[in-house]
């Protein structure tokens, strides 16, 4: 079977030794099983992220995205650009739409791109997508389910979608207030998606760093609700959500006297284990709070 080809934009947090390194590790088994080939865009740069606005302004921020789009077009023509990080996906997709929408912005961006000997055609039309879109739209839930060899029976999971995997673009056909796709993906792995009222609550994003008290109040709600609904772990499609919701539990315990110890894993780690991946292949050795129930299944 020929593999489906995509231009891959990893993003800064997914590099080796970075905060979401284990996320990308967990893609391996899934891509093998589902015949997906991710071709890294050569010399990609930071997407500028939402938080880049203060110093970056509008055009420099969009030009950061435009360079990635132009590199992808040059080296991997005709392939959709795929990212695992919702913030990267948002930035690349926003750059695409803004440039398509305004010929004057496109002209300005191309003037800046001349400095790196790149150019975007006026009819540039490459799609920027999140990895969940590839799985849902190009593979489909049924095929995702067929590849399962170790159903995650008895594992109760709170599907935490967060913000940028859901807004402003989200997954086609899903609602902003109560998206279903993550729960469906959990169920294709044979696990149970528990009802979860903090599904689309903000974790504080980049401000978890600069406004720890305010962000940790949100994270406390996110983790607390997972406990209230009997979840064994939280699952997310976002590296920043994963990091914030996992890392700050010990801080919240110190300040608020809670006893949080809730694993926070990626949907790809669930799939990886369900597809027969080992603890290492699923990147479960990258958790600060170990997901013991998953490790037990992966170790069998």
């Amino acid at each position, binding site marked *: 079977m020929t593999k489906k080809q995509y231009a891959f934009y990893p993003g800064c947090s997914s590099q080796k030794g970075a905060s979401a390194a284990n996320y990308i590790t967990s893609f391996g088994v899934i891509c093998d099983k589902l015949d997906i080939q991710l071709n890294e865009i050569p010399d990609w*740069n*930071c997407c500028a992220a939402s938080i880049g606005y203060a110093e970056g302004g509008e055009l420099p921020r969009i030009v950061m995205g435009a360079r990635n789009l132009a590199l992808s077009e040059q080296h991997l023509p005709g392939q959709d650009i795929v990212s695992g990080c919702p913030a990267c996906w948002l930035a690349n997709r926003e750059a695409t739409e803004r440039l398509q929408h305004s010929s004057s912005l496109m002209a300005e961006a191309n003037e800046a791109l001349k400095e790196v000997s790149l150019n975007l055609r006026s009819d540039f039309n490459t799609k920027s997508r999140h990895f969940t879109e590839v799985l849902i739209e190009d593979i489909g839930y049924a095929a995702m389910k067929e590849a399962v060899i170790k159903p995650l029976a008895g594992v109760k999971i709170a599907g935490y979608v967060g913000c940028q995997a859901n807004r402003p673009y989200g997954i086609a056909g899903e609602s902003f207030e109560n998206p279903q796709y993550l729960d469906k993906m959990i169920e294709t792995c044979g696990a149970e998606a528990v009802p979860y009222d903090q599904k689309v609550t903000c974790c504080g994003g980049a401000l978890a760093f600069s406004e720890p008290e305010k962000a940790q109040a949100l994270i406390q709600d996110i983790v607390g609700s997972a406990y209230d609904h009997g979840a064994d772990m939280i699952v997310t499609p976002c590296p920043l959500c994963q990091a914030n919701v996992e890392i700050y539990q010990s801080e919240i315990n110190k300040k608020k006297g809670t006893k949080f110890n809730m694993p926070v894993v990626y949907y790809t780690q669930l799939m990886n284990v369900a597809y027969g991946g080992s603890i290492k292949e699923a990147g479960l050795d990258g958790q600060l709070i170990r997901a013991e129930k998953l490790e037990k299944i992966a170790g069998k």
Partner: protein
Amino acid sequence: MTTANENAVAKYKNNFLKEVEATVEEGHWVKMCMQCGVCAGSCPFGPHWEHSPQKIFMMIRAGKREEVLKSDSMWMCTSCYNCMVRCPRELPITHIMHGLANYAYRLGLSPKGQPNQAIAKLFWDSALKYGRVNELKFSLAMYFRDGFVQGVKNALAMQSVGLGLVKAGRLNPMEIISGHTCKDTSGIHKMIAKAREIEDRRRGLA
């Protein structure tokens, strides 16, 4: 020599709405706000905003230039996009808030030492320097932004988390000397300098 702020005051006189429309990202949408307040009620940091987006839109129309640009409100945006998807008029509120914050910052009016402004600047500087964000240097710069003593305190407070990440392979101490980088960083620097030059000319900030 006059400052960019003085130039803007002279150019737009008391018409702050016109100024916002001409200089702020997506600013031309501001007049479309119908004051329903859904944005104000949808913000995860809502209680921490001195003025909600709804109020800021009205203040712009009322010409409250100083109050808006000196406010720390826009800096409270977590970029969750909740206000934006719920707005019945479909205003790109998140982008307008970012645009206002950026404009205030570039005019030198934004509150000094505002922590979210600090992190936003450090993030951009890190991304630009190497073409990719160096998470270790970025984190340390954030901890040490208020001087060495406070920095050591901050770093010690988060020590166990940091060591946990190192152990889990998600933070590489070697990044302090040799981190991930783009090959064409000098090209990226030139490209961004050019983009800034073009944008500053268009916004009257040059």
